[in-house]
Every structure is written in structure tokens, then in C-alpha cells.
């Protein structure tokens, strides 16, 4: 569960300023929006003043001259219409700016995520990374679109109203200033309590949804283990806590939101009426001024209400933004390469020289690994789960940085090649080939738009996958659904082969490529593998020893060390770990006893 924390004053401001720094490229549009806003505000303020002039100069003294009155009326209507147009564009502009800013933020954080090392992905659940890129930025968008814009517009209007008030009657305007600290007080109180309660509500809601989603996914398990009643109870408890949190929010909103603001509104009316009442005992009063003040008050509180209601969004957005910035400041970058643009891999010889490695800097998962794969040869890695096979590949693919030992390609340190060179020359087939949303073609081509359909089909043909692809609806244009779950794992594997072969690498890396596939498909895969390996240096991990019997070198790993090495025959002759594994895998436990005993 992601804990949402409340961020304190200073840090909050830092986050806000950092967010605001994203407005820089849009300075011109922002200035335009502000000018438009200024125009609308002036328009809003002018209305009551025109009515005031009408009341005091014409209506009260019954001074009915047609022309000025007509002019007043025309001005009033004119201002209204102009205001509608200007304020429409003003509102739109502000939203556009906000959306563009968020897009930039999104692209920035996404680019950052792409630049991070796999170490980061190991320690961070995928869901939470996705949340940073989309949901959190969405929360920030909400803040820009509604909170910030509302605040700016509200602040303009409030300032405008006060200016108008000061022009109309300085003394009364001074009195009205009392309202401000009162409102600020309520706002502060609301912000303080609602941020706590609202946070709580959101957390409960996410717990509730997590519980629900998990229960739905695991419903078969719940039912077969007949835990329905217990889980219903657990869910009802969380639901009840969510309800309580909801009630607390309703209460705090009821105490400090609209009802409180309405109270201040009546208080302000009392203030104005008293002022005019008391003044009227000594001197005449302009009714129009009173009208204008009352009418300003009516407008005054709407933006205040709006601002109050959006305070919680602000809080949320700041929390979201601080999480986004945390990702942007993440230092767990992908391993860097030395800048050596021209060096290229030609032969494809791979050498590990005394490589030791640890993910957590505590326990070594690789200890003094040394071996050489000559150009065109296959080196197979076998061993128990956790013996370090995948780690070797992870280092070779530069997914993780290593400090001890050296990996050499064609005699040069792997760190000295440009990243692009490594990616082009080394093809990795993953244990679980990831199938992207899109067509079969898209999945073979990936983002390489230069690849022609012919090349795609040739690659598919080469690895025997065209047989199943051609049987699909629309063939190569078949739309993959749900991460390719409609394909068998063997078919997915063949697709991954095609993807790798299409990129035509010099070095082939197979990560548990042949695990979990039924025997029939495996034969097709074997055939494809044999073809793929021809002329390529290959490093292969295999669960099934049968797939790597013709490897030039087999390394048997155990707890991060190479305990046996040699080809299939040699290793079998040794009657060591490899031999045992081999016998076990073929269901010959009795003979294992012979060997051990």
C-alpha cells in the first residue's frame, strides 16, 4: 500500500515552485491569458458601478434624461457581451497552458523512467511507476486546471472588488477588509483538518479498491478454499472504515465549507448595513453605493467557495508532484557507457574475466566468473534456480552495473562500446517474451519503422513462426489481444525469436528460452534455435538440458560459482552435478541413487 504523506510548509513551497518552473516556456501565452483575465475582471467590476451611477444620478433624483441613461444601458449590455467573449478565451487559454505543462511533465518523467536502470524496476512495483507517470501527473493537471486557475481568477476578482469598493467608499472598504482575515482563518482551519481527513478518506478508498480488485482476481482461490465469509467480513470492515472517513469529511465540510462562508456573508451584510445605517443618522447616503457594495458582496463569496472546495485538490497535487519529482531525481540510472562512438563489434567474441557481482552489496550472486565464448560458439549456462545464470545475462546486457572483474567483447571492455552498438549487435530472447499491444508485425518490428514487411516475413519464416502467424485472422496484421495471452507460450517464444532475428544481431542471448513449453512446440523451437545460432555467438540459459547438448561449452553454476565446465559428453563423464541434473530431468531417480550412492 502506498502511504500518502502530508507534506509540510517549506517542502510544499519548493514543490510548488518547481512545478511553476514548468510555466517558463509558455510565458507569452500566460501573459496573454493574464491580460484577458484582467479585462474580464474589469468588466465584472464595472457592472455594479454602472447601476450605481444609474441609481444615484438618475433614478433617485428622478432625473430622467434619455441619452445618458441609454448610454448607460448600452454600455452595460456591451460590457456583458464583450466580457463573455473575453472570458471564454481566457478560461480556455489557462486550461490549454495547464494541459501543455502537464504533457511536458509527463514526457519528462517518462523519459526519466526510460533512463533508469533495472535495479530501480526491481525495487519499485510496476504499478507504482505507472502511477507516477499517469495518475500523479493527472492529479497535478487537476491542480493546474482547477486549483491554480481558480485561485488566480478568484484573487483577481477579489482584488478588483476591493479596488472598486475603495473607489466608492474608502471608509467602508476599510471595514470590509475585516472579512479577509476571517476568511483566511476559516481557510486555514479547513485546510488543516480537511487535508488530514481527506487524505485518510483517499487512503481508505484505495485500500477498499485494492481489496476488491485482489478478491476478484483471486475469487477462484477464495471459493475453493471457502473463505467467502471471512473475506466478506474483512471487506465489510474496510468498507465501514471508509464510510466513517466519508462521514468525517462530510462533517468537516459542513462545519467549515459553504455553511461557514455563508455565515461570513451575512456578517458582511450586517457590517455594510450598520455602516450605512449609522452614517445615515448624520449625513445623506447614496443608495447606489449601498447597492454596489451589496452586489459586490454577492460576487465576492463565489470565488471564495470555489477556492475552498479545491484546497484538498491542491494538497493532493502537491503530494503527487513530490512523488513525481522523486522519480525525476532518482539516481538509480541505467549503467552508462564510455563515449566511444566508433568502436564496433565485428567478431563477437565474449569473455568474462573474474566477474563478481551483488545486487544488494551484501551477498554475491556471482563469484569470480570467467569463461570465453569464441565467435560463433554457444556457451550454455545451467544450474539450479538462483545459481546466477540470469545474473550473467543481466550483466552482459548492461542491465546492471558491475565493478569487479571485466566483461570483454572482441577484446575490449563492454563498457567501452556505445550503447546503441551493444543493442544492435546483441539480441536477447527473454524468458517471458513481452508481447505489446498492436499487430504481429508491430511486435516483430517494434519501433523500427525502416523495417519492411518483407524483412519481417523473412525473419518470421526463418524462425518457423510464419506457420502459426499465417493461420491467424489477418495474418501479420493480426491484432494481439491481452498481451498475447491467446497465444501459447511456444508461439510467444517464436514471435520473440522473429523479433530478435529481424534485428539481425551478432550475438544471441537466450534467457531460459526453452522452459515451460510442451514437447511438440519445443521441436519447432529447437529447429529455429539451431538456425539462429548458426554464425552467432550464443549465450543460452536452459532448464532442459536436452536443448543445449551441442553447446561448445556448458557452464554448471551453483550459488554463483562455476562448479563444472565442459561439453555435454565431458560433463556426463564427470558424473558430477551436471550428470545428476541430467538423470533427474529424465525421471531416472533410481540411477541417481547409483551415482550418489
Amino acid at each position: 500500500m502506498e502511504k500518502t504523506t502530508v507534506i509540510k510548509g517549506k517542502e510544499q513551497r519548493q514543490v510548488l515552485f518547481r512545478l511553476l518552473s514548468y510555466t517558463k516556456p509558455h510565458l507569452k501565452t500566460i501573459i496573454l491569458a493574464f491580460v484577458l483575465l484582467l479585462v474580464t475582471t474589469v468588466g465584472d467590476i464595472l457592472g455594479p458601478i454602472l447601476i450605481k451611477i444609474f441609481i444615484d444620478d438618475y433614478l433617485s433624483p428622478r432625473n430622467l434624461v434619455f441619452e445618458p441613461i441609454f448610454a448607460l444601458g448600452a454600455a452595460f449590455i456591451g460590457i456583458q457581451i464583450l466580457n463573455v467573449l473575453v472570458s471564454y478565451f481566457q478560461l480556455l487559454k489557462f486550461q490549454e497552458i495547464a494541459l501543455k505543462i502537464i504533457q511536458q511533465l509527463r514526457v519528462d518523467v517518462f523519459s526519466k523512467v526510460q533512463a533508469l536502470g533495472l535495479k530501480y524496476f526491481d525495487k519499485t512495483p510496476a504499478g507504482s511507476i505507472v502511477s507516477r507517470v499517469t495518475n500523479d501527473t493527472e492529479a497535478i493537471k487537476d491542480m493546474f486546471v482547477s486549483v491554480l486557475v481558480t485561485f488566480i481568477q478568484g484573487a483577481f476578482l477579489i482584488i478588483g472588488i476591493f479596488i472598486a469598493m475603495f473607489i466608492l467608499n474608502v471608509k467602508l472598504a476599510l471595514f470590509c477588509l475585516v472579512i479577509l482575515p476571517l476568511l483566511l482563518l476559516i481557510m486555514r482551519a479547513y485546510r488543516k483538518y480537511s487535508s488530514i481527513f481527506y487524505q485518510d478518506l483517499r487512503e481508505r478508498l484505495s485500500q477498499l479498491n485494492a481489496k476488491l480488485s485482489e478478491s476478484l482476481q483471486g475469487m477462484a482461490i477464495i471459493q475453493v478454499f471457502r473463505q467467502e465469509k471471512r473475506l466478506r467480513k474483512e471487506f465489510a470492515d474496510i468498507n465501514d472504515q471508509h464510510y466513517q472517513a466519508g462521514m468525517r469529511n462530510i462533517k468537516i465540510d459542513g462545519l467549515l465549507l459553504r455553511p461557514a462562508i455563508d455565515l461570513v456573508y451575512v456578517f458582511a451584510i450586517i457590517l455594510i448595513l450598520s455602516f450605512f445605517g449609522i452614517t445615515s443618522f448624520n449625513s445623506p447616503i447614496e443608495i447606489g453605493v449601498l447597492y454596489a457594495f451589496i452586489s459586490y458582496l454577492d460576487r465576492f463569496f463565489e470565488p471564495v467557495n470555489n477556492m475552498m472546495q479545491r484546497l484538498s485538490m491542491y494538497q493532493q497535487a502537491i503530494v503527487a508532484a513530490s512523488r513525481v519529482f522523486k522519480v525525476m531525481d532518482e539516481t538509480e540510472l541505467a549503467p552508462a557507457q564510455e563515449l566511444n562512438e566508433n568502436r564496433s563489434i565485428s567478431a563477437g567474441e565474449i569473455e568474462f574475466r573474474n566477474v563478481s557481482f551483488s545486487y544488494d552489496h551484501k551477498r554475491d550472486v556471482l563469484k569470480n566468473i570467467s569463461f570465453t565464448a569464441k565467435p560463433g560458439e554457444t556457451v550454455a549456462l545451467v544450474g539450479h534456480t538462483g545459481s546466477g545464470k540470469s545474473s550473467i545475462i543481466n550483466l552482459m546486457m548492461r542491465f546492471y552495473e558491475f565493478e569487479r572483474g571485466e566483461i570483454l567483447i572482441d577484446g575490449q571492455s563492454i563498457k567501452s562500446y556505445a550503447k546503441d552498438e551493444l543493442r544492435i549487435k546483441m539480441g536477447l530472447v527473454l524468458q517471458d517474451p513481452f508481447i505489446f499491444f498492436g499487430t504481429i508485425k508491430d511486435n516483430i518490428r517494434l519501433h523500427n519503422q525502416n523495417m519492411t514487411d518483407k524483412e519481417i516475413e523473412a525473419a518470421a519464416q526463418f524462425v518457423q513462426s510464419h506457420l502459426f502467424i499465417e493461420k491467424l485472422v489477418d495474418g501479420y496484421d493480426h491484432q494481439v489481444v491481452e498481451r498475447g495471452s491467446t497465444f501459447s507460450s511456444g508461439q510467444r517464444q517464436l514471435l520473440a525469436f522473429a523479433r530478435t532475428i529481424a534485428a539481425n544481431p551478432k550475438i544471441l542471448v537466450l534467457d531460459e528460452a526453452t522452459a515451460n513449453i510442451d514437447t511438440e512446440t519445443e521441436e519447432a523451437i529447437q529447429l529455429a534455435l539451431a538456425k539462429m545460432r548458426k554464425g552467432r555467438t550464443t549465450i543460452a540459459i536452459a532448464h532442459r538440458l536436452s536443448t543445449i547438448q551441442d553447446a561448445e561449452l556448458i557452464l554448471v553454476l551453483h550459488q554463483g560459482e562455476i562448479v563444472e565446465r565442459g561439453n555435454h559428453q565431458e560433463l556426463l563423464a564427470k558424473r558430477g552435478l551436471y550428470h545428476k541434473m541430467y538423470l533427474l530431468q529424465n525421471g531416472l531417480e533410481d540411477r541417481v541413487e547409483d551415482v550418489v550412492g
Partner: protein
Amino acid sequence: MKVFLDLMWFFKQEKKAYLTGIIILLFVAFLQLIPPKVIGVFVDHIKNDTLTAKIMLIWIGVLIAAAAIMYVLRYYWRIMIFGSAVKLSRQLRNKLYQHFTNMSQSFYQKKRVGDLMAHATNDLQAIQQTAGSGVLTLVDSLATGGFVIIAMATTISWKLTLIALIPMPLMAILTSWYGTMLHKKFHKAQEAFSSLNDKTQESVTGIKVIKTFGQEKEDIEDFRKQSEDVVQKNISVARIDSLFDPTISLIVGISYFLSIAFGAKYVLNEELTIGQLVSFTTYLGLLIWPMLAFGWLFNIVERGRASNDRVTALLAEKADIIDEENSVEIVPSGDIEFNVSEFSYPDENVPLLRDIYFTLKRGETLGVVGKTGSGKTTLLKLLIREFEGYNGTIQFAGHPLFQYRLEKLREAIGYVPQDHFLFSSSVAENIAFTNPDAEIDEIYEAARTANIHEDILQFSDGYDTVVGERGVSLSGGQKQRISIARALIMNPEVLILDDSLSAVDAKTEEEILNSLKQNREGKTTIITAHRLSAIQHANLILVLDEGEIVQRGTHEKLMLENGWYKDMYLHQQLEELVEHGG
């Protein structure tokens, strides 16, 4: 407005709260009329020079009292009405959850988890809004609107009221129209956002592929394009959204203009006082909200109705597999007799199982092998009564399965599914899933038998390590072994391993099978597997192909027959034989 009728059961249930809330709302609507009235009175007194300190104090006293009462009442109707709405969503959510737990697996085959989640979140939200804001808006806009109009017409001037109201309906119509358009555009924007979300999800989970092929730049470019689409869709939302405020202020402005223009005429004709005119315009201010609210109401109610219909339809779905009347309350223990001539999934015509006849004596082990899709898992699902509707009978301890209470039947079965699903809680809680009060020793024991104890001790927090979706990620083999431990802790009459050893290596598989042999002494075990070594020791092995038993017998017997089993076995041995024979 039909949705209010559909929700009547709830309004009846919460009669007291709703009635109190509505009465309070009416009071508030009435009290709201006081300040404009007082303003008018003041203006007239000032204008006519009749204001005294006493009059002033009285009216200010009235205002203070009204304000204080309104504050309290406004607080309480919120508790009453919004509180009830929250209660409704709690109630429906529990009901849905309970319903979900009752639904059979065929239901989950048809529905997607994401859609079900959407019902339980978005739809409930919309219903809650209808029962809260919807009711409020309906009552309040009618009450406030009605009271204000009555006050304007009776205490000031009905003619002026009519004139001032002319533009108002336009506001309700326009805002309601904008609302509908906004909803559509918003929906598109949501879709764009969710596809951006999917894209991100894909890039993050497929990060290894992207890095492998060095396509970070291209992927970022793709992301930029999609996020641009989100911007465009949101801008079309903004285009509608920005219409609201200007429209409202234009219409209100015209209304003000009309009232001042015509009001002034009436003042000059001495049909009105200036004070009344000021009151009138303040009343007009009070009308903005009910008009807006009416526009909203239609949108809230429309969405609420659609959501309520969906949730009602969902709740009306019947479970396929239910307890028979007179079902027995015993946990079955004994022989299993399978006599199924044909079975196909509901709504599918292709039979998945045909002519499956076998008897498994209590304490024996059954092995089921065959290609993927040959019907191995389906066979197991019938046994645990996840599906029904087959021709024939399945007897357990002398009675057909359906004669047992579902709960009792399943108490006899420890099932380890193919997709090893773990819950987001500690390892210990996951293993003790069927019995949260299990002693820690029992948990250790189950974990040892499943050969995962040592692994668990290596985890950062041992048995307290949180696993599952939101916990540490485990290897497939570790997950499989934890789910085996979860089934073992029940010490079930029948243990079912549905290809549950596929992700563990040969050595671990052997160890698990050995410890199971001791642990399951005298109890029935059913194992399906790809790897024949997992079922070699079984008392009876069934070879399935396209839903039919093509071979049956013990390992030794099957090895004497020519067929799939021997072929497969030989295939797995082929290299070994070549090695040793040659």
C-alpha cells in the same frame, strides 16, 4: 427522474434521515429570504430618513439569528442527506462484494475484472451522487427557487418577477446541454488517458525488451505522441467547460439589466420603492444557484440511472452452482467415482471432456497427463464443482457431488491451481489462508512439506514478508510452492496439484514429491503434469487427448503399451538412451 423511484427502497429504509434532511432544507430555503428582505427595509428607511437605532438593532438581531440558525441547519442537512448517500454506497458495495463471492466461475469467465471494478467504483459513485447531491439539488432548487420566486412575486412585484425570469430557463437549458456535451468529450478524454496509461504500463513492464532493442528514444517519442492526443482531447473538454461561466454571467447580466430597467420604471411610477428594487436584485442573486442546479440535476440523474441499472443487472445475475435443498452437511471422505460422458463450458458447443470413467480409491494417487488443452484442468474443475452441467455423475464417498453442501465438499479438497495466485499479505497469512488462527508450527510444517521453508527464511522479513501484487516479487517456483503449502495446511482429504510443479526444477520437484508421499499417507492425491516424473508413482495414470482418455494404467503398465505415454517417456529419455546405449 425514474432513478429516484428505483432508489425508493433506500429512501424508505432511511426515511427518517431523508425526511429530516428535506425539512431542514426547506427551512434553510425559507431563512435565506431574510437577508435580502432586511436589505430592502434598510434602504427604504435610509431613503425616507426613518431609520432609528432601535429599528436598526432589531433588524440586525434578526439577521444574526437567521445566520446562526442557518449555519446549524446547513450543517445538519449535510449529515442527513450526504450521510445517507455515503451509507447507500457502503451498503451497495457490501452487497456487490457478497454477490461477487457467490458467483460461480462461469461468471468470471464472462466478465472482466476491470469491468467489475468499474461497477463497484464508478457506478457506485454515480449512485451515491444521485442519492446525495441529486436529492439535494432536486429539493433545494425547487424549494429555494420556489420560495424566492414567491417572495419576489408577492412581496415586491409579480410583473417584475416575470420579466426578470425570462432569460433564466435558457440558463438551465444551456448548462444542461453543455453538461451532456461535456460528458461525451470527457469520456473521450478519459479514453485517451486510459490508453496513455496502458502504453505506460506496457513500457514499464516491457522495459527489458525496450532496453534490449535500444528503443528508448523511439518509445519516448511514441509516448509524446500519445500524450499529445490526451492534450487535444482535453482541450476539446476545455472548449465546452469554458462555456459555463461566461454563459451564466451573460444570462444573469441580462436578467439584472431587465430588472433594473423595468424596476426603475416601476419605481418612477411609484409602484415600487428603491429598497424593494435592491431587495429584488439580491433575490435574483439567490436564483442563480437553483437554475444552475436544475441543469446539473439532469446530468447527475441521467448518470445515476445508467449506473443504477448496471448495478441492478449485475446483482440480478444468478449463480450457476448453488447448494441443493437437503444437501448433506458432511465433509466427504472416500472413493471418487467419475462417470462423465460429456461436458462443455456453458455457451460453448465443443465438448471439452468425453467419456471420462474412472474410480479412485481413497488413499490412492491419480496422475493426469496430456497435451495442453487436452482437458486436464477441466477435469479437476468439475471435481471441485467450479463447473457443472455435465452428462453423467461424479460420486465422492458414495454420493454425487451436488448432494454435499458446497462448503463441505470443498473442505475436503486442497486445490493448488495452475496460476499460483497469492494475496497481498504476509507469507504466513497466505499459507494459513484457510485457517487464520493456525499455529506457527503448522505453517512451518506445511512450508517444509512444500519445500519452501528454507526459501521463506531467506526473505527479508521471513514469514512476515508481504507477497502478492503489492509485495515482494517471488519466482514462479516459489509462488507455486507457497500455494502448495496453502493447500497442505488444510490436511485435506483430497489434494489436487494442477500442474503445480511446472516452475520448480527437477531436484525440487523430486523433494516435494518425496515429502508428499510421507505426508499424504492414506489420503487421496490428484496430480496433473507435463513432466511425467511428477506422476510416475501414481496408482492410476490417465492420458487425455482432446478431452478423452486415450490411455490408462500405472506407469509400468503404460510403458508396456504403445502410445502417447510411452512415446513421451521415451522422448524425454531419448537423449539419455542414446548417450548410454551408444
